[in-house]
């Protein structure tokens, strides 16, 4: 299952993903403005299973969870970047959007078709033929991811334990 790469630069902040002035909008509407300041067509063109590729410090700024919520609602399969801000990274994974740290993220071009195996920790750029290894998430986080994030995962776990 491959997806297209949408490529952005360094320091993509959470305001760009979820603009402060629009925070009162319902999540689905807010998502339509995701990354609009750097790519006005992003929300319209991104499809389920596509990838967001960034540079350094992806997700800096405010800790608002809505940044990750928007990516999740738009169907983004994973975010790949050279480095992430910690709270965004956690929020995204908690919401079921994996963040893949990859020093060579800059080798990915807009429109490249990517394929990712989260369990193995392998990213393949089908367009260039290059492959990259990254540290996979451990089983308990993979399980959380499969359930769609922390809250659904916890709900399931607690229901199972009851």
């Amino acid at each position, binding site marked *: 299952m491959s997806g297209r790469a949408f490529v952005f630069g360094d320091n993509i902040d959470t305001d760009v993903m979820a603009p402060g002035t629009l925070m009162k909008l319902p999540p689905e509407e807010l998502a339509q403005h995701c990354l609009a300041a750097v790519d006005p067509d992003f929300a319209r063109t991104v499809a389920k299973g596509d990838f967001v590729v960034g540079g350094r410090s992806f997700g800096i700024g405010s800790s608002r969870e809505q940044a990750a919520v928007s990516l999740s609602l738009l169907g983004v399969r994973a975010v790949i970047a050279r480095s992430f801000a*910690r709270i965004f990274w956690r929020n995204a994974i*908690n919401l079921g959007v994996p963040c893949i740290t990859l020093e060579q993220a800059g080798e990915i071009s807009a429109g490249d078709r990517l394929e990712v195996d989260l369990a193995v920790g392998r990213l393949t750029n089908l367009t260039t033929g290059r492959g990259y290894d990254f540290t996979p*998430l*451990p089983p308990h986080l993979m399980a959380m991811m499969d359930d769609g994030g*922390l809250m659904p995962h916890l*709900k399931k776990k607690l229901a199972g334990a009851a």
Partner: protein
Amino acid sequence: MGRGSTLVEKIIARAAGVDRVAPGQLVTAQVDLAFAHDSSGPRRWAPMLRELGVGLWDPQKVAIVSDHYVPAVDAESARILKLAREFAAEHQVGAFFDMVGICHLVLPEHGLIRPGAFVAGGDSHSPTAGAFGAYAAGYGATDMAAIVATGETWLAVPETIRVEWSGRFGAGVAAKDIMLFLCRELGMDNAFKAIEYGGDTVEGLSMAERMVLCNMAAELGCEAGVVAPDRTTFAYLRAAGRPVEDEAAALALASDRDAVYAAVHRFNAATLQPQIAAPHDPSRTQDVTEHAGIKVDQCYIGACVGAKIEDLRMAAAVLKGRKVSPDTRLLIAPASQKTTTTATQDGTLQTLMEAGAVLLPSGCGACAGYGAGVLADGEVCISSTNRNFKGRMGSKEAQVYLGSPYSVAAAAIEGRIADPRQFLGEAA
């Protein structure tokens, strides 16, 4: 293996139930203490816990402190506080502190921050607790709800940066100056890293000053800041009525000699000048002399980082026998009720009041723009708080400079940013 562990790695390994951990490793840690305040806690947790159909995993390990909206100024803040009180009662929260001060100070005052503990806080300045040799990080709302529901959380083990300071501060220089200096030197983009402070300067600092170092780890972008526990730590906890039982074990938390750091930086405290951060971020720091003469409409001594009894004493040392300039105003919001009580007993408050300061309630106050003392368009403020992001203390058109309590007090006398050393018997 041959590779030692840092203090942070030791705490995380213990909390994760493994012998050792390496940076980058993902683990699940058992939380020793989870806390939040009126803004980040009950009002966000309640709906999520309801959705999960569970209560708190262990009410004795949860602390709630009302500090952001205190005292209520309108119906909405009153509602938020009421919700916090009702939640604490309903869930039988072991430690609920209502209107007695700011969480990052109130918890240590009650001896609740323990060396070696894994602490999860629903606030970005949670690293403050690292001053006691705890690993303490800030978490978002969903993370915190999951933590208070289950008692555990996952994390990637951070790399540790070590910063060593040697030498004694000159007059008018404090831990706050170290942090403003480091914001410039190390920048604010240190995600997934912890910072460990050491060296003879740090060893000689009070717990209050160590808390300043760890508090502003947040401004560096670090997830945690730590100082190894020692006699000073033990004495503080003894005085708080919660002595450390096994001091040898606490001492053994210190980083191993062969621990591996992401980087080691060494600085000299003796040559450090009072530092001032210009608007609108704490990394825009320069020596006070670079900003001297800038007119200020307000001088604010407040916040978890800048209004402990030690901070009030610094201000009093500068203001003793002097007056606040009629061109400005000096507001003081002590970080806790206990701070105010102590300041009353030891004469600090009298000195400040006689100088013309205005006393505000204990709480976050104007620091994040929630309470009394916010700024108007075009106003300039010098503040002992930790952040000066645009709009944080009120109007987006206000300008906030950051400095130590010495520097804020000096500005209050002059009505302009001024070198505090001229009031402390050491010429600039």
